């Protein structure tokens, strides 16, 4: 019962944010200096074609009506029509959503696999050489531009080692894993330093907690304390840390998808901006924001299921 209550409150809190986000996405197309239709058609279309396109997008109607039509359409999965590609925006985005989510999940898993042991080592050997080395490596990793890392990985693996494919998506699941390995490693290399930094702090907090002291005084082996007590409690913040960094993860994915010619949402955004395909840009802005919000909601729910103390507050 408390659970439902919490969920409802959380959903109600999201309503103003959703309205704000949709307003931002909606306004985008209306603040384009000059005529968006003329710009989209690069000034080469006849006046009657321009008028038809304007009517198609509903740009000839009053603004509040247009907004209602936009948000009403978005709620039932209608995001308008791309003039450039002559197809519904929802379809164009829909067919690229799957690959993008696959890529993001893959990168997150890789980043967690790398970050958890590194942050544990850094926390255990706090202030020692290993800790400093991990921290310095994190700073350098944080400063590496993903497009540059991706290019180096392409050069190394694509040309000299020839282990992984350097572009595309593939057809079957093992094929996906092989095709997406290099882009995922690239994204996870920029995500992992953030994770290590936050996780190290979380683990230090757990290590100094009373129940660890109790476990020690009970005479448990360090190995058992580490796995049963430290790791289990330090893994809870991973959920929150991942959710906080989802925007950063998506930003990295945009550039990496473009570099690896990957058929995802990020490369679609870059292409749509190149063509000035405003309905697609608008739809993508909405979808990206929804992804962030959904991930944050899921993280909250997950956190609550793991740690019931949240409910009492």
């Amino acid at each position, binding site marked *: 019962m408390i659970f439902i209550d919490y969920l409802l409150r959380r959903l109600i809190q999201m309503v103003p944010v959703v309205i704000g986000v949709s307003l931002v996405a909606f306004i985008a197309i209306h603040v384009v200096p000059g005529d968006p239709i003329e710009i989209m058609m690069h000034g080469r279309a006849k006046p009657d074609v321009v008028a038809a396109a304007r009517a198609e997008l509903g740009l000839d109607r009053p603004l509040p009506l247009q907004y209602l039509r936009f948000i009403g359409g978005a709620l039932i999965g209608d995001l308008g029509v791309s003039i450039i590609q002559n197809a519904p925006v929802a379809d164009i985005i829909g067919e690229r959503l799957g690959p993008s989510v696959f890529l993001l999940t893959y990168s997150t898993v890789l980043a967690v696999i790398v970050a958890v042991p590194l942050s544990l080592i850094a926390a255990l050997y706090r202030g020692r050489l290993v800790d400093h080395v991990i921290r310095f490596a994190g700073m350098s990793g944080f400063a590496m531009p993903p497009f540059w890392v991706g290019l180096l990985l392409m050069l190394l693996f694509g040309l000299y080692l020839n282990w992984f494919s350097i572009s595309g998506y593939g057809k079957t699941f093992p094929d996906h894993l092989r095709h997406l390995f290099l882009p995922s490693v690239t994204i996870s290399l920029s995500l992992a330093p953030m994770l290590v930094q936050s996780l190290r702090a979380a683990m230090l907090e757990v290590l100094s907690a009373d129940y660890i002291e109790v476990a020690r005084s009970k005479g448990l082996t360090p190995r058992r304390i580490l796995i049963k007590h430290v790791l289990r409690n330090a893994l809870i913040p991973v959920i929150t840390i991942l959710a906080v960094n989802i925007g950063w993860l998506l930003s990295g994915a945009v*550039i990496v998808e473009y570099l690896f010619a990957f058929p995802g949402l990020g490369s679609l955004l870059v292409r749509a901006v190149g063509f000035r395909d405003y309905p697609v840009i608008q739809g993508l802005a909405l979808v990206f924001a929804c992804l962030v919000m959904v991930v944050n909601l899921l993280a909250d729910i997950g956190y609550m299921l793991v740690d019931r103390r949240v409910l009492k507050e």
Partner: protein
Amino acid sequence: MIALTRGWSLPAAFGAEIRRWPSSLKVGSAIIGAILLAGIFAPLITPYDPYYQDFMKTLQPPSSAHPFGTDMVGRDVFSRVLYGIRIDMQIGFFTTYVPMTYGVMLGALSGYFGGVLDATLMRLLDIAVAFPFLVLIIVIISILGPGVPSIYIAVFLVAWSMYARLARAEMLIERGKDYVLAARTLGYGPMRVVFRHALPNIINSSIVFSMSDFVLNILLVSGLSFLGLGVAPPAPEWGAMVAEGRDFIFDAWWISTLPGLAIVFTGTGLSLIGDGLSQRFGQPQRSLP
């Protein structure tokens, strides 16, 4: 006596202050200092014009005449990397510290006064955080058209939100402390209390964060230029240079690799300063607030 020693020992005091710095702050400052000097004195360090195309010397590997080699139109890559310091550091600086200035002020006022202002600001922050940073910037650039002025406008519109969030959170703690109450009891106006008394105590976390933000902004500018939405060629911007060399990566690795290395080097230096400052101020370091 005190006045005398103060007047005479200013350099000595400065030296003593530097000796107290954590080693990461020393190393980071040395790296960034060297990079800034190299950018300022670029014409003295390299004899080549970063824009001069020498078609007799295209795609030459690194040599003593061209330490970083030459690119596909025969420009000296080392000169371009050096002149790139001016572009990337300048854009990085302004995209970091302009939004920080009004972001901190807004956050501080909002945290101090609360009420309608605070509620409005919090809703705005929620919306700004819902968009991935790069996506929002790209959407704004799609409206304004590619180029440096668009980057400035887009970042100025968005990036203040992180500083406002930080400053607001700090101000909520600071608001109830004795010295703030004392200043109010003395009859000082709210502006004086916020900006003269509380601000110096809440600014440190923003300064520490600004070093990570500086790195993020250099990555942002070079990333946008790599996508063709930022600094346009032939300007020697690091990200744009990586993009130019991309088609030649298998034949001439140096064109893309070395400008990218300049980004990593600069970013590491800035992060080291941030790390050192967080130790000096006793603040937890964070990449994202």
